[in-house]
Every structure is written in C-alpha cells, then in structure tokens.
C-alpha cells in the first residue's frame, strides 16, 4: 500500500485532478492509482485488454468488447478522464457524451441507424433476431421523429437522454 501511493506526489495528483475538472478528490485519485497499478500487472504504464478481461465482472458485461476499444491502452491520466464521466458530480452532458462515444464506433461525431443496431446486437445477443431488432428500432425512432436514414448528433442524444432517470454513477472506494 505504502509504495503505490508514495509514487504519486501532490503535483501529480493535482495535475490529474485538473485534467478531470477536479471531479475526483485527492484520495480518490490515490485510490484509483492503486487500482490502476493492480490491474496493470506487468507495470507497463497502461492496462491491456487482457488485463481488463481478467476482471470477471467486466468480462461478462455485454458491452465489454465495445468499452475495451475505448479504454485499451489508456495511461493513468486518460484512464481517470474516462472514469470521470461516471463521477456523481459530472454533468449530465458529460455523461451523455460518453454514452454517445460508445455508440459512435468510428468516431465521426455521428451515430447512424447501423451504429445503434450494433449496440443492440451486443445487448441482446442471440435472443433477438436482426429482423426483430430492426423492427423495434425503426418503430421507436419514427415515434421519436427520426427516420432510418437520419444520423444522430451529440445534441440529439442530449435531447433524448437528458432526464432525471439517467443515473450513471460509480463511487470510487476510498479506504
């Protein structure tokens, strides 16, 4: 325990804090750093896909492969920035932007019908057919005023998702 936290100086911590808009307290950063080092088993400075998958609770998540594309190979600073969207203090747009990025797999700033279909495929696996998924999606998109050909922007996501029921909070354990 002592060794892991001592490698982070106050400057380092403040630096990381600044990068994540001071959403995390110093203690939380220290705690996250310990976790980071624990997952980065060979001390390379980043966590590999395989190391992420060694956490069974993560490996069995339907969206794990998709998330891996976002977190694979992040250094500690970027790792914390990624996590900051899950901070209870993070703003709603920040959270929604992260959700948007999960959908936007080619990072072009647009989410198409197919992008959403992909995520639905991850979420429902073999328990829905492609036809069923398409049917459902077309129906709800039309009801919301979009068509199959429209692509959604971040602002659309904010409009659709921003409501108090959206809860995306992960507490960092501090001991």
């Amino acid at each position: 325990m002592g060794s892991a936290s001592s490698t982070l100086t106050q400057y380092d911590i403040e630096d990381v804090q600044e990068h994540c808009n001071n959403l995390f307290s110093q203690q939380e950063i220290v705690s996250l750093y310990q976790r980071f080092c624990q997952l980065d088993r060979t001390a390379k400075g980043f966590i590999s896909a395989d190391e992420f998958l060694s956490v069974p609770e993560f490996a069995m998540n339907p969206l794990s492969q998709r998330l891996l594309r976002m977190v694979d190979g992040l250094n500690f600073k970027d790792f914390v920035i990624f996590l900051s969207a899950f901070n209870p203090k993070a703003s709603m747009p920040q959270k929604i932007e992260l959700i948007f990025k999960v959908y936007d797999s080619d990072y072009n700033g647009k989410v198409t019908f197919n992008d959403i279909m992909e995520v639905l495929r991850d979420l429902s696996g073999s328990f829905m057919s492609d036809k069923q998924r398409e049917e459902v999606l077309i129906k709800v998109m039309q009801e919301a005023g979009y068509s199959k050909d429209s692509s959604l922007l971040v602002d659309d996501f904010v409009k659709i998702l921003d409501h108090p029921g959206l809860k995306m909070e992960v507490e960092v354990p501090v001991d």
Partner: protein
Amino acid sequence: MSKLNLEFDPDHPNIEDYLHTDSIQEPLGKLRLHDLLDISPTLTEAVGAIVDDSFTRCFKSNPPEPWNWNVYLFPLWCLGVVVRYGILFPVRVLILTIGWIIFLSCYIPVHVLLKGHDKIRKKLERALVELICSFFVASWTGVVKYHGPRPCARPKQVFVANHTSMIDFIILEQMTAFAVIMQKHPGWVGLLQSTILESVGCIWFNRSEAKDREIVARKLREHVEGADNNPLLIFPEGTCVNNHYSVMFKKGAFELGSTVCPIAIKYNKIFVDAFWNSRKQSFTTHLLQLMTSWAVVCDVWYLEPQNMRPGETAIEFAERVRGIISVRAGIKKVPWDGYLKYSRPSPKHRERKQQSFADSVLRRLEDK
C-alpha cells in the same frame, strides 16, 4: 512456478446457480427511443467492475502495515530484522532439519519393516506425519489456538475448511492426520505428495484433467465409506483466498451423503500475511517468508457438524456451510468461482444478461 493448491472439484458447478443477476431492470411501460438508447445501467456496471471488483479483492495480498516510519521505531525495526533473519531463521532451519531427520529415520524403517502389519503401520505413520507437521508449525513459531472438539476418524464424515495457503493443511494435519484432496504439484512438494502423504490416504488430481475428476469422485466415495480411513479434509474453494473473503464452494464434498464438519481458519495478520499468492511467489518463497517473520498467529474452529436438510440441494447445502464458516472466521462471502483465476467466465453469464434485456424489450414492445 510450482502451482500448489489444495483443492477439489469432481464436477464443475456453474456460477449462475449462485448469482442472481437482474442488473438490467427498467420500469415497464411503452418502449421509447430513450429507453433503447439508455445504456447507462450496463455501462455503470462495467465501469464499477473496472474501479473495484470483489473477485480481484479475494486474491489481493495485504502486506502487514509497516511500522518503521519514524526515527524511534526505525532502529527497533532494524534490530527486529537482525533478530528475525540472523537468529530466528537459522534456529528454525535447524528445527526443521532435526524434524526431518527424526521423521525420515523413523518413517523409512516403519514403512519397510512393518509391511505385513498394516494396522500398526498405519497408526505409526499417522503419528509421524502429525509429528513432522508439528515441526513445520514450530518452524514459523505457529501460535495456533484450536477451538472445539478434536476430530476423530469415523466413516461417513467429511471435513471442509476455508483455504488461505498450503499451510492450512499443515496446521490442521498437526492435530489430526487428515487425508486431503489436493492438486498434484511439481517439485519437492510433488515428491512428498506421492511418497509420504500417500500413506495417510491423500488423493491427488490435476485441475486441468477432466478424467481425473471422475477418478477423484470415485476415490472419494470409497474413502468416505471405509471405517478405518483417516478423516477426509477438503478445501472446497479449490484455490487459495486471502482470508478476507470466501469464494464459492465446489459442491462435490456436499453430495457424498455424509456429515459435513466445517472448520474455520482465521489468520491474524499482525506479523505476516499467511495468504499464499501463487501467482506472485512459489511455495518455497512463501515458506521462507513465514520462517523469517516473528510468528504465524491463527485460530482454528472445529464447528458443529452439518447434515443435508430434506429438500436441500448440494449447492444450497454448500452455501449454508460456507455461511457458517464465513461468520465464524469473520470473512466475507462473494459469489465467485475461484477457478476464474485460471479461466475466463463462460459466455453463459453474458447470455443471461442479454436474454433479460431482449425479453424486456420484446415484452414492452407488445405492451403498448
């Protein structure tokens, strides 16, 4: 290198029998685009696992808090190091060597000369194995408190204990010559296994061999039936856990139809962490670490024997016994299979979540 684990797994139970994963829960009603796009519960779960997960916690070594942090304590601590490495360690090596000399010089004649007299040979060998284990315990100045009645050999009973390190076995063996189910190990431990421990009726298997499981299951049944056999000891977790948590019990020990006698072992980490992290250190290094510490302090409780209740499945029975042990030892129960240390979870868990998502979407689509 040497992966030593006392363990047991005739069948391969599924975690889903233990888990209740209904994480994706939504209020019912008409399905809207919002509901479909909102993946926050699944994301929260995934990121929650990245930040902290109970599985990794089970296998985390917790080194003792260092106390050499100020000017007054530091010289004392240094003195301690000198005493531990310069005096205690050589003395302990000597004790262990003497133990081995005594043990081998008695064991070999007994084993060879008393070939025809099985009963007396067995008895002597039993006593000798208990003796060498006592020497081992002495070599780490083991301060072990045993609570509850001492087990004796009786047919139709199985002892199960939580598992922190290979030394669990030595500590229990010092009191009673148990026959234990173990993973077959390479190196010097493997040699001991196939020669000396074989004589107390221990059963070996290879975690990775599916065929071994059947053989072990059969041997188990035979062993439990025999009246003259040493009491059987099983570590149903199948792997070493850090003594703060208990992982899922394999059900094999609980479907033999015999009485299950739980044993709870709790280490006091004041001097040394007795958890053997087989990923990080070999058993030899682990033993050296114990032999250079001040003492290994632990409590052993022999608990109330349990029988399967009418209508109870083997898994429910296993969970109940795990509960009893966890409460007594003050450790937390987590719903994980310890074997996930060696393999990835099966796609079944993911499928379960996918199914519940698909069901909910389809149901709500019809709802309108």
